[in-house]
């Protein structure tokens, strides 16, 4: 019933936003379904509507707009970086150890004389991919658990919430370490060294990050399912599935998007922590967190080594959070901007 094409809407809502947005900011990966859901149909007439309206609202949010630019630059940088900066990440040059930024090495070099810019470009791909994937895992699990708990009127709801509380009560770092020791080798055998560690880290971080989303979604569902418009749809013969998909979920998404962006940030930080502890990717595969870890012994002589990856993590996390804020406001049709 909400098929956008039938109702005369360009079926690719994201494409009608800004080219910047479309260019794959991490947060928009999460927002695409929300965008589509928030825009049931659109008028071709003079009125701004649908995606235009969402974009208009989003563009009123200054910080979010700046954040989109910053994040787009970071994403483009790690994607296109190797073309513009073709130095290999493992190009060891002992004559240029621990050098500060210079024309030859804009971000300086590490203790093996490897170019930090090249390593950051390569590491950023992994860090951003881990962040987005872990967020997707956490959001999907959280949405499922939360909506089941939120719609259940029987024993399922409390049981799911006990499980959620149980997961929240687990000490995360020791558990992460344990899981990694237990499963690293199995996964390496299945997916290969890099792939295995990637899958493991995403699953572990996502699997321990869904609880806030689940609680949030449940709370939203509990209040939304009693709303009159839901009752109205029910009295018109809607099935529970239809109610959830078309009425409750779209209205619950605002806070979920914000939680999702926070999840991206915390996943990037969690990956950094794991790498920092030497438990993430192997030392020859750089990630932003791994570079930070390697830099810690040389902070006094080569602070640049830690500063650049640190700044990259900081900027990514900050801009994703602002984009989340902006999206939440933009997708709320009632909000007067």
């Amino acid at each position, binding site marked *: 019933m909400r098929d956008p094409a*039938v109702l005369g809407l360009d079926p690719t809502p994201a494409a009608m936003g800004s080219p910047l947005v479309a260019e794959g900011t991490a947060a928009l990966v999460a927002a695409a379904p929300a965008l589509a859901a928030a825009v*049931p149909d659109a008028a071709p007439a003079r009125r701004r509507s649908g995606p235009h309206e969402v974009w208009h609202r989003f563009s009123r949010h200054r910080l979010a707009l700046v954040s989109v630019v910053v994040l787009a630059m970071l994403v483009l940088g790690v994607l296109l970086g190797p073309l513009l900066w073709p130095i290999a990440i493992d190009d060891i040059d002992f004559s240029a150890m621990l050098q500060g930024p210079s024309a030859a090495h804009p971000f300086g070099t590490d203790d093996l004389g490897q170019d930090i810019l090249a390593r950051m470009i390569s590491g950023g791909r992994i860090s951003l991919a881990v962040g987005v994937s872990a967020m997707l895992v956490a959001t999907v699990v959280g949405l499922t658990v939360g909506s089941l708990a939120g719609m259940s009127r029987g024993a399922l709801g409390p049981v799911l919430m006990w499980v959620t509380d149980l997961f929240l009560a687990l000490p995360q770092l020791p558990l992460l370490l344990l899981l990694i020791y237990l499963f690293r080798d199995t996964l390496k055998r299945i997916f290969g060294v890099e792939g295995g560690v990637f899958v493991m880290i995403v699953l572990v971080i996502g699997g321990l990050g869904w609880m806030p989303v689940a609680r949030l979604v449940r709370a939203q569902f509990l209040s939304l399912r009693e709303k009159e*418009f839901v*009752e109205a749809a029910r009295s*018109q*013969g*809607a099935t529970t599935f*239809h109610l959830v998909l078309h009425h409750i979920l779209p*209205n619950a998404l605002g806070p979920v998007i914000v939680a999702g962006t926070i999840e991206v940030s915390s996943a990037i930080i969690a990956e950094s922590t794991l790498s920092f502890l030497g438990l993430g990717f192997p030392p020859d595969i750089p990630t932003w967190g791994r570079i930070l870890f390697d830099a810690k012994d040389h902070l006094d002589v080569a602070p640049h080594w830690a500063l650049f990856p640190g700044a990259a993590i900081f900027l990514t996390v900050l801009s994703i959070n602002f984009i989340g804020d902006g999206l939440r406001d933009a997708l709320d049709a009632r909000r007067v901007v």
Partner: protein
Amino acid sequence: MPTAVSAPVSAAVSTPLLEVENLTTAFRRDGAWREVVHGVSFTVGARETVALVGESGSGKSVSALAVMRLHPRQASRVGGRVLFEGRDLLALPEPAMRGLRGDAIAMVFQEPMTSLNPVLTIGFQIAEGLMLHRGLGREAAEAEAVRLLDRVRIPAARSRLHDHPHRFSGGMRQRVVIAMALACRPKLLIADEPTTALDVTVQAQILDLLKELQDQEGMAVLFITHDMGVVAEIADRTVVMRHGRAVEAGDTAEIFRGAHHPYTRALLSSVPKLGSMAGETRPLRFPIVSATTGAVDVPPGLPDTVTPGQRPVLEVSGLTTRFDIRGGLLGKVRGCVHAVEGVSFTLGAGETLALVGESGCGKSTTGRSVLRLIEPAAGSVLLDGEDVLTLGPAALRERRKRMQMIFQDPFASLDPRMSVGAAIAEPILLNRLGTRAEARARTADLLQRVGLTPDMASRFPHEFSGGQRQRICIARALAVRPRLIVADESVSALDVSVKAQVVNLMLELQAEFGLAFLFISHDMAVVERVSHRVAVMYLGEIVEMGPRAAVFGDPQHPYTRRLLAAVPVPDPARRGARHKVSADEIRNPIRALDYVPPVRQYREVSPGHVVQAWGEEWEPKGTSAAA
């Protein structure tokens, strides 16, 4: 138009207490200033009651808050002069203004549920003002608080002083709020819709109380309301506001006798008057007076929509709905709310049965139980002879297209993220009554039928006014061509003029489609206008039911009489003719688990008019003995 009509000076008023001259108020939105009150002037004399009356958005509350200087400073701009005892309040420094608020000028707000702080005892909240403004010590202030609670007639005031607000009912809370306002013996009381959130009988009690306290204290009251009945009941003078301007001001009796401005006449004509339907047998549309020209559109009579002898669309018998109250560590069921208890009625095609009663009487639960939005505990609901309560989920969804519901709050009952067109098309598509193209065509058709235009389909609910939203909800309910519509307080939240139009629309649609309406309302005057038959509910049971003319013309049950007596009559000439309403409250329907509801006896007074036999709990109230 600063002053449309100069107010006639009432007797014994020499210098007014409050003089508002050319008051303007603007709010900043999106960086631009938007003026919402454009030069309003009025005066309030000592000991006088002035009503500011108007529909939502007319600027009446904004003006009152501007007098108190309660608007946020950064986002509002107030112009003009507000003279209180000769001092310009708008020029007063903030500390001096703070000294006046709650002391010389006090305020009572609309919502008694939210205007008390839930974590403080009521005694402390009353004493607070006294300690602040009068410098009383704690003990003296509490003693004074007890005296005040006695004055607003809260039973056992001394023992209830240390209770928190949640232990009081809505009416009692409003009394507490009034006690707080009266604490410092204000010269001016600003009451912003103080009775709107209350039931009619409670409203009548509060109005009586305000009037009495005003006489004793000798204070002036600025009464803000949308209800012409309340105005007629309480105000000496009336200022009618519209779109931020005062369109008419004058003596209340004169305004009701012969209003000059077409808007005032339009407003007055759309006020439902209890008793205006005497002699009519069928529902009647409201006359619509144009607010600009004053031209009257006399309603044509409606055709008779009820055909006797047919099997009723809806037959409800012994309907019972209870809600469990759980408590204790393991969530054991401690008791039940007997929301609906053994309710039986029938409703024919083209007929309107009104369920009336006060909040908590179970009328909404009855409506929802009929549609099985709430699962009833017992009874049967036959829709066209088929029991709805025994249907499986799929069959129930299928039957739901024959019975639809219109809710009280049109905004809450529309999905804020769904365009209006999609909302109306949804039931058609859900029930597979047509293709998308057909649904779109029917949506356009329905929008036109309810008085909107098809191009509005792409807009979202927040872009419409309250009346338009209710029209949209009606269109959505009609989309599946139902036989029965449950209208749950469907017009209660609307402004009077809009209410009249929506009621007219519903009556026209009934005539056109032969709809059966289960019209749930607390508003006796509207009910009198629209219904064929009336059922009065009290504590989950129907205490009296019968043809509209019989129930309104010859009420039998003491509760029906009390309810009718409490309705404010929009006619100042009949002020005081109203019965004194006894100050007791509706009891709550919470019962222990082993409670067995008594078997009720009904007595037929005249054909179709049945009354529940009542026990002696009704007798000493003295409204009337059994006929």
